């Protein structure tokens, strides 16, 4: 093989290995970092996996927000106003636009006793904005009423 072809072959092999290596790593990394979204119904009926980082969302049920008097722990109930409710426990500061009766997203793990332990609570960013994950749910609720 002449030297030019040889170096070209090396380059091709190198590129092939680099590209497939990167792709494989990407796939694995993606697999580990995907957070699926589950509506309240799937959280309650057991479709959502336990002890996995997932996202869930729905409306905060009126009158369910309870603060612990001595710490930053807070509990509230998320509902789809259609019979599926679950309780979220979160320690920390809630976002500015967190209100009762509004749509929110929580990220965290579902515990076997049905409690959702959130490490992040996301609310809308302004009055007009709705997280896309909640759009279907909000439309459904509006239809029912």
């Amino acid at each position, binding site marked *: 093989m002449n030297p030019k072809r040889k170096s070209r072959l090396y380059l091709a092999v190198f590129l092939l290995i*680099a590209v497939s290596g*990167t792709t494989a*790593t*990407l796939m694995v*990394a*993606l697999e*580990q*970092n*995907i*957070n*699926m*979204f589950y509506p309240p119904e799937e959280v309650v009926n057991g479709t959502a996996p336990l002890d996995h*980082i997932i*996202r869930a969302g729905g409306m905060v049920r009126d009158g369910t927000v309870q*603060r612990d*008097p*001595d*710490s*930053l722990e807070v509990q509230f109930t998320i509902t789809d106003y259609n019979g599926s409710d679950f309780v979220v426990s979160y*320690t*920390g*500061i*809630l976002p*500015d*636009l967190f209100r009762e009766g509004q749509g929110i997203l929580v*990220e965290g793990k579902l515990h076997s006793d049905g409690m959702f332990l959130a490490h992040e609570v996301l609310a809308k*960013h*302004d*009055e*007009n*904005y709705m*997280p*896309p*994950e909640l759009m279907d749910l909000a439309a459904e609720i509006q239809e029912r009423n």
Partner: protein
Amino acid sequence: MIAEIGQLSLALAACLALAAGATGMFSQAPGLRLLRQSTTSMVVGQFVFVSFAFVALVWSFATDDFSVAYVANHSNSLLPLPYKISATWGGHEGSFLLWILIMSGWMLALASRRANYPERFFGRVLGIMSLLNLGFICFSLFTSNPFARMIPMTPADGADLNPLLQDFGLIVHPPLLYAGYVGLAVPFAFAIAAMLERRVDAAWARWSRPWTNIAWAFLTVGVALGSWWAYYELGWGGWWFWDPVENASFMPWLAATALIHSLAVTEKRGTFKSWTLLLAIAGFSLSLIGAFIVRSGVLTSVHAFAVDPERGKFILLFLAFVVGGSLILYGLRAGGQRADVGFKIFSREFFVLTNNVVLVVALAVVMWGTLAPIGYEAISGARISIGKPFFNMFFVPLMLVLGAALGLVPVLNWKRTAWQNIKSAVTLLLPVAVLLASLGFYLTEPKSAAVLAALVVAMWVITTHTVDIWRRSRSGRLPPLAYWGMTLAHLGFAVSVIGIAITSTQSIEEDVRMEPQQVVQLGKAEVRFLGVRTVQGPNYQAQQGIFIVTSASGETFELRPEKRRYLAGGNVMTEAGIQAGFFADTYISLGEPLSDDAWAVRLHYKPLVRWIWFGALMMGFGGGLAVLDKRYRRLRTRHDKPALNATAKQSTA
């Protein structure tokens, strides 16, 4: 009336863009000289009419004309005047008009330098830019008209600007960022024109370089400003969230960074031509994809504008047309550009190649992480989000490789470098870099291998570049501005790496419940909460917390974070109290009131956080400095002469 004038001006600009597109692209015959030259005047005309339109919209904001729907939705009579003006680009329609204004501005700047380029080639460039501008203006007029009226349903007052946007950051961030986004249309147009004219050569690369550099500089500063704005205005102390819209601005930045390096090789060595063309196409295409992501509502984001499927369709079509068309042209014309210029592993060429490979892999990672949720939903219907660790997992090693390679750059020559030079640089300077890094590492707590690696890489870059500056200035002749620009940008990279490594590992964050007079320890500092009082702002009412911080060195200062309620929309917003410092920031934000005067409070201690943006500014200024180099000004005399053009053309044929 003013709004109608604005709309009319925009329509006239569209007509001019269409005409300039036609004359620029299709008047190549020798007898059509006059027609060709009219392109320039029509480019000036586009700028003038777009400016009229923009001023008309600003005027509608300044005079509270709430019969204009866009004004009614994004302003309020209580809004202070500077924010009324910046509210012009606070929403989808107006920000797109700003985009068009900046596009026309770039075309005007190009037109003012027309003497530097051969006439036919330059006609094509302006023609391509005009056609792109036509697409943008049509998008504005047909799917997102900022001048639409609400008559007779005119509201008495406006709905107010989102309080997050009532800020200095919004005044400067979008114009700079758009200058970068749209500026990438210039190298794109140069690349397309070069392919059409079959002159993909070193001269083309030299013409492209200053425009690409300056667009890149704007983009760099724009992205950095966005990060800084998120840091102080979102109120929770993060400076990068891997949010889809941040990614949308980061992807063209990565492509443009690869492009400015690859262009250098194409100019100096006449190689990497096809690759450079592809990067030029990719850079601008990614800007458009960014616009699509932000404006079509396909993704969850802080920045997402209101959703309208029509807009998404229009941008997607436009995108398909621009990307598809340019890639087809690339397929037809980019082949046969092979230049058999050999180079060894220790050469600038190979290191630019490394830079490009790393940046493109980084780009692939960001793109994958940003677009995967869309693809996943389209296929399975389920909604997913991608966690931040995904991005960090790749970026840490990638940027370390990039920095390690960057450190050798001052030693490298084109084509090949004597092994002796490499060896002496590594044996002399690497120990110095490691020593400096260890000194810094000694101060860190907690210690981690990643921080040590980042510090070594950053110190390695700083050491080799500083020694190079010293070596060159000792030789008596001052190096050209392009050299200073490059060196400043490379040092900026190192500064950012240090900032990122230290801030992400050494920061202290505490969410605590605080009662008045309570003292909390934040690292080595003490924070005392005095209480909360009510203050009145121009268009909001705030609960203002008062905190006294005593730092480790005994210095005392006061921070006053606020919880604001805006009167017009009833929006609540957290305004952090920040004591900014070169070495560390102390950052306090108020959460919510708890029982008996107690508040939920978030306390941050963020060492070297400013270095992240300071480094980015250095990169941006470096890019700007390189453009001022004499070699780009000399173009004028070189290409005025028709004889020289003829020879240049022959050599490419």
